[in-house]
């Protein structure tokens, strides 16, 4: 497949509107599985339309395999797309649905057959080839849509626009598994757009997190989870998101709500004076019943059993915090002690990570 580069791309729908996307520069590497993740209105659908050619950006350039493609119409880009709702011809069989894009491209009969069989094999559709698409469930239809996107040998990239929207949570799991498998087998360039962090993080090797038309961070799932560069990323990634507390730096310690916490001073340069925010993931806080060294006293507000973990809401003074406690760990009832492991404390000034 192909590599797609966008450089300083910006778009607004009318001359006096706000920028729907602004100053985006990014490379989708050949054979990569990327995700574009962000809330409604972050600009991810606009970006997708720019990639597919449905929108001509107000500014900036787009290259496919190094060739200028900003003004190229969708058909000539060879970029396939899978949408929220399955796009299949219900009156046709699965075989005919898969063969359609190939026959349209004038491929020889034998070659069509070989290619349809190979794609069906890859997606586990072999047994369904003779079934009519109208008789398939939503998840099966979506897999056929995926097959139609992948089937042309000259496809440059496949864009997936929230492809699991109409799929049951239990089935989503299976389709995600299938997508990863397809990526491993074909090395297709895949771009997956979603607001769902689980889908983005488990699908992609590289995730582009967007908010208000801008890229907030590009990173591996692990980087986004462990070291969010913006408070927004800390909040948006993770269930629930990162906890934030106002704090001040005093020498080798942080002052938080009148308490002192040790920090790793080698982790960032001197931020000067002024208000900072401490960020820490609910997974990394350690809640104990008895006082342990360096732990702060908290009140337990509530605890919900959520299956594989408990979500405990605590208060440090008046400040609320959420703690994720693995199933089977004892939870204190009224008061407890909360340890902030220094290696997991992140500091933010004006929403930006101090490094």
């Amino acid at each position, binding site marked *: 497949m192909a590599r797609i580069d966008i450089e300083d791309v910006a778009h607004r729908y009318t001359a006096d509107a706000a920028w729907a996307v602004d100053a985006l520069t990014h490379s989708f590497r050949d054979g990569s599985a990327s995700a574009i993740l962000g*809330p*409604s*209105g972050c600009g991810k659908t606009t970006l997708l339309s720019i990639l597919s050619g449905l929108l001509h950006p107000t500014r900036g350039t787009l290259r496919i395999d190094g060739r200028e493609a900003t003004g190229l119409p969708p058909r000539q880009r060879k970029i396939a797309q899978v949408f929220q709702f399955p796009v299949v011809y219900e009156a046709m069989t699965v075989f005919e649905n898969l063969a359609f894009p190939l026959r349209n491209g004038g491929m020889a009969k034998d070659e069509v057959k070989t290619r349809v069989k190979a794609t069906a094999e890859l997606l586990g559709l072999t047994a369904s080839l003779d079934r009519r698409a109208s008789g398939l469930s*939503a998840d099966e239809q979506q897999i056929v849509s995926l097959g139609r996107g992948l089937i042309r040998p000259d496809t440059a990239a496949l864009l997936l626009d929230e492809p699991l929207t109409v799929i*049951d*949570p*239990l*089935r*989503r*799991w299976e389709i*995600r*598994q299938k997508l*990863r*498998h397809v990526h*491993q087998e074909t090395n297709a360039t895949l771009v997956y757009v*979603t*607001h*769902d*962090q*689980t889908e983005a*993080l*488990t699908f992609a090797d590289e995730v582009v997190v967007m908010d208000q038309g801008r890229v907030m961070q590009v990173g*591996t*799932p*692990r*980087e*986004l*989870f*462990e070291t969010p560069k913006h408070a927004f990323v800390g909040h*948006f*990634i*993770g*269930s*629930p*998101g990162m906890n934030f507390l106002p704090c001040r730096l005093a020498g080798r310690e942080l002052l938080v709500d009148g308490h002192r916490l040790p920090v790793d001073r080698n982790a960032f340069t001197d931020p000067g004076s002024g208000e900072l925010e401490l960020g820490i*993931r609910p*997974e990394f806080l350690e809640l104990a019943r008895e006082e342990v060294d360096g732990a702060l006293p908290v009140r337990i507000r509530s605890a*919900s*059993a*959520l*299956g*594989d973990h408990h*979500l405990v809401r605590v208060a440090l003074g008046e400040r609320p915090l959420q703690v994720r406690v*693995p*199933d*089977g760990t004892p939870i204190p009832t009224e008061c407890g002690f909360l340890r902030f492991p220094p290696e997991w404390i992140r500091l933010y000034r004006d929403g930006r990570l101090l490094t």
Partner: protein
Amino acid sequence: MTLCLEGVARGGLAGIDFELEDGSLTVLLGPTGAGKTSLLRLMAGLDKPAAGRVTQGGVDVHRVTPRQRKVGFVHQRFVNYPAKTVYENIAAPLRQAQRVSRSEVDAKVRAIAEMLRIDGLLERRPSELSGGQQQRTALARALTREGGLLLLDEPLVNLDYKLREELGAELRAIFARRSATLVFATSDPSEALALGGRTLVLDAGRVLQTGSAIDVYRRPASVRVGELTSVPPMNWISGRLASGRLQLEPSSEVVRPSQFEALPDGAYRFGVRPHHLQLDPSSPHSLKLTATVELSELSGSETFLHLRPADAGRAPLVAHQAGTRPRSIGERVDVFIDPKRLHAFDEAGRLAAASGL
């Protein structure tokens, strides 16, 4: 007034028997096509059962209009008044109730709008809102009403993930403050757990189990309930109980764990949740299975390993590990299970004994 369903059948639904107490919260959990919407429509009195009765305070519900019964219904596809502002959309049921004063209406509308984070949009019309904002407007309107029966059909399904997560947590508190009898349909097991209340597991038109969300999760009455109550679903491992032992395969055998003490010898399907498959032995008494990694999914905070057991007759397994623990495709791994974590199901798929922890 208790809502009673007795031997109700219609379409794919059959043999539905349960009661909803006044002011209670019930979560209908089931996959698409389970019959959730059909069941809600029967409770609303919109459809008549082909067999059995739906009664409230002893009166057949379809004999009374939904308005008289104070039934609210929030659909998966939201419905708003297109010509009214968000404010008027939310205020509509309060205005119909008459006895509510203007200032009281205003206070209620603003309070519920704030809870659902649409307080900045009150002067807009539905056409100027995103899908998620329209859905929250419909939800706000339904929640202004006190008392009666409120039926919510997958109301969060079209919302952004983050909003769904936050609203899910808040709805628990919002619901607790309502005097209405609430029924919330969802296909997402984590939503059922987050909402709490009583869970009713529905599949293929039948009620499979009722109980508190966490009890259903911890003691699934059947193989199917085990599958429907977590994502990824419960793992299945066939094995035997023989004299004092539990055997998974010739090489993996342990002393029979205490929860299975009373069970007769024989073949069983053992169920274990994905987060109880370990890659390190947690105790010297752990069971061990050998498997090949087929796929490893990383979410930053968690790792999902899809495993193919070396024993060809076994079903694939999914191990859910905390932290980032990547493994290469094709790598052979040993999977350990604390035998106390196993549930046993009989050949008919019914729970024989739940996990001992």
